[in-house]
């Protein structure tokens, strides 16, 4: 049973009709699109460029000459000196070098070197100490720092005064500088002029401090000397002042010789510009000029002018203001005193023995002075400085010994002093102005093994005398004259110096004292200055003190000196005499 399915039909065909409304055309038209543009791109930024490289750097260049080939070979050959740590057993790890705090001395160019290249050449040289430590130059003893400074001072200078106090090693400093200049090839010929007694000393010092530098001593007859002067195989020639005078035709301007360096030892010899020695020395053709002297001023500043006529003629003039002279000459002079540089050096102990004349001496003195003054006064206008000198010398001799009896207050004191010296096994030097006094003293001090060293002792014997004094323990005293014994001798084993009478200027006395008080001195040096009170010696002593002050003033750049040299009035003033003429100066 199936139900019948009833179906209903619906017509889905809905009649549509287009009604023309006028829109049809509009519908067939493409829609109109309006475009609006927006610019998203920003403006191009401005760029600022910075230069990071900077401008080109300017460079100044200097090229220096290499040392001569032979020196390079020497430098290569020199074994480098090792520190103590370098000798440690092999296998131990090498430890970092711990440098010790050390002084470094560089050569400094003098003010008259103008070119920067030349100044840098000197400044950039290795330190002088490094020459020693590297083994490039061997020294028998390591120089003291002040000696390195002295070498650094001399090395670049064409004109220089080395005016160190006696005993500080002027000889060593000048030899070492010559050696360095020769080895650097900066000089090839040197002439060293010294007093005759010092020639052997210089020879010895050259052998010690510059053993590889050949030297020749100008000596012998005229033909031999002529050959020696012209021999160009030895770079260093040593001549004495006397020979210089004899051979002035050879060493003068027309002799055909030229030296790269001329060194004058004891240059106070040329302080008097009108002396023959000074005239000859200034005419030696040369490039460099050095003067060595412990006493650039002995009497007055004119002495220094004389030395500078050799070094730099015209730089100093007589009568120049002392401050102007000090500043002008300062660049050329190096002077150090023991007090300044050798702080560890034993002291100088002065002991002024003020003695009263013996009765006989006193009587002789008074008579001589009274008569002498009367005689001088009677001379009126005829009176000269020379006459006063004669009286001074006469009175000084009486202060030493009574001419009739031979009595001597000084001698009594000396004998007592020498007893003490000999008992302690020490040695002493005694200085006097006169050989006759020395010979008289000798008679009284025979127990002390006296030796003599003065102008009457032949030059050939002098070295033997010094050797004997040094090595013979029975010889406790050497009797010296100021003239022969005051320069160039090394007697630092003596601890006592006696000035039996006083010299005219303190510089000579200092030189004498410094025979004993110099490098190597074992202990304090006691200086006994014998002075007869109430006599001419007292009065001279006052003038000496004033002179000492003058010297200190010029070389310390401070203050003004009280007196400049001995004036004629001062000499006459010793006896309350009036000077008949104007002031004069004289050399001691």
């Amino acid at each position: 049973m199936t139900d019948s399915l009833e179906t209903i039909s619906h017509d889905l065909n809905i009649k549509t009709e287009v009604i023309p409304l006028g829109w049809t055309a509009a519908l067939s038209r493409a829609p109109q699109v309006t475009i609006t543009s927006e610019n998203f791109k920003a403006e191009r930024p401005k760029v600022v460029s910075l230069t990071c490289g900077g401008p080109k750097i300017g460079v100044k260049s200097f090229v220096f000459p290499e040392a001569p080939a032979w020196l390079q070979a020497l430098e290569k050959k020199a074994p480098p000196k090792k520190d103590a740590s370098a000798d440690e057993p092999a296998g131990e790890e090498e430890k970092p070098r711990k440098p010790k705090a050390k002084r470094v001395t560089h050569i400094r160019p003098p003010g008259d070197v103008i070119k920067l290249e030349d100044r840098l050449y000197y400044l950039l040289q290795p330190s002088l100490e490094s020459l020693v430590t590297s083994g490039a130059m061997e020294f028998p003893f390591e120089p003291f720092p002040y000696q390195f400074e002295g070498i650094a001072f001399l090395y670049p200078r064409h004109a220089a005064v080395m005016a160190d106090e006696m005993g500080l090693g002027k000889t060593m400093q000048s030899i070492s500088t010559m050696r360095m200049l020769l080895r650097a090839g900066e000089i090839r010929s040197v002439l060293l002029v010294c007093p005759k007694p010092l020639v052997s000393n210089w020879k010895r010092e050259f052998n010690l401090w510059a053993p590889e530098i050949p030297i020749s001593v100008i000596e012998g007859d005229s033909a031999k000397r002529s050959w020696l002067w012209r021999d160009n195989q030895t770079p260093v020639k040593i001549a004495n002042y006397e020979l210089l005078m004899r051979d002035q035709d050879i060493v003068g301007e027309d002799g055909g010789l030229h030296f790269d360096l001329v060194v004058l030892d004891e240059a106070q010899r040329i302080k008097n510009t009108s002396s023959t020695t000074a005239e000859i020395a200034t005419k030696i053709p040369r490039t460099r000029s050095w003067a060595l002297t412990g006493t650039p001023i002995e009497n007055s500043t004119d002495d220094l002018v004389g030395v500078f006529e050799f070094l730099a003629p015209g730089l100093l003039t007589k009568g120049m203001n002392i401050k102007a002279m000090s500043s002008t000459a300062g660049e050329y002079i190096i002077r150090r005193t023991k007090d300044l540089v050798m702080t560890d050096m034993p002291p100088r102990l002065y002991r002024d023995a003020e003695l009263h004349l013996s009765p006989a001496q006193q009587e002789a003195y008074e008579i001589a002075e009274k008569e002498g003054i009367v005689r001088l006064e009677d001379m009126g206008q005829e009176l000269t400085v020379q006459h006063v000198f004669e009286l001074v010398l006469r009175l000084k001799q009486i202060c030493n010994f009574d001419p009739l009896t031979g009595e001597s207050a000084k001698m009594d004191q000396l004998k007592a002093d020498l007893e003490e010296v000999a008992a302690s096994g020490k040695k002493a030097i005694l200085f006097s102005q006169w050989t006759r006094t020395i010979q008289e003293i000798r008679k009284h001090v025979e127990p002390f093994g006296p030796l003599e060293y003065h102008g009457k002792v032949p030059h050939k014997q002098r070295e033997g005398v010094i050797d004997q004094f040094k090595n013979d323990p029975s010889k406790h005293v050497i009797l010296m004259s100021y003239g022969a014994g005051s320069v160039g001798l090394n007697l630092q084993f003596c601890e006592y110096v006696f000035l039996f009478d006083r010299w005219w200027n303190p510089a000579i006395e200092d030189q004498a004292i410094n025979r004993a008080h110099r490098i190597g001195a074992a202990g304090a040096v006691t200086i006994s200055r014998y002075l007869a009170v109430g006599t001419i010696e007292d009065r001279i002593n006052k003038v000496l003190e004033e002179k000492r002050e003058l010297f200190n003033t010029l070389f310390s750049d401070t203050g003004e000196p009280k007196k400049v040299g001995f004036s004629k009035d001062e000499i006459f003033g010793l006896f309350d005499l009036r000077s008949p003429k104007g002031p004069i100066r004289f050399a001691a």
Partner: protein
Amino acid sequence: MSNRNEKSVPTLGFLTVVEHTPGGLFGGLLVLNLAGRPLEFHCTAPVKANRAQEILYGPTLKPYLYGEQIGGALLAKLKTPALAVCTDSEHVLSLRDHIDIPVALIPPSCAEEAVTAEATSTYRDEPAQLAVALPHVRSFQLGGYEVAVSDQHETDQTTLEAMWQERSIDLDLNEPFTRIREAIEEAHGVGK
């Protein structure tokens, strides 16, 4: 004085830079033969960084000025090639990036300081401290001195050691810098 045979002389360069206010930086290069004698000296005009350099180089400004600029300008003037360059300024080590020879840093010695500038006691006790403390260097012993090279050029150590041994170099490596400073002072009126 003889002329130098330029080909036969082995040399070492010592380079330092001195700072001077307000002058600027002054570079100095000293060329020594192996015995310590001077053969050449070159020094710069005063050098000052401009503002841009100061900003842009930042912490690398000193190595740039000391090494590339000053060191480069000085080395360019060498008349004879040096075996190596020694310097007492770490900033100069950067020069090595621009040249073909080793650059060794030599720390200032306590001895030199003691003499010239009164070094502090701490520094005196530790002379090699500077070389060891720098992070970008390699320290080693050379001829008894504590020296250093840039760690960018480590092989320089071997090169320098061989050089010192072969030529038995025994120079004081600190002292030449004193000379350079004195020379700069002489040339320019500065340096200390």
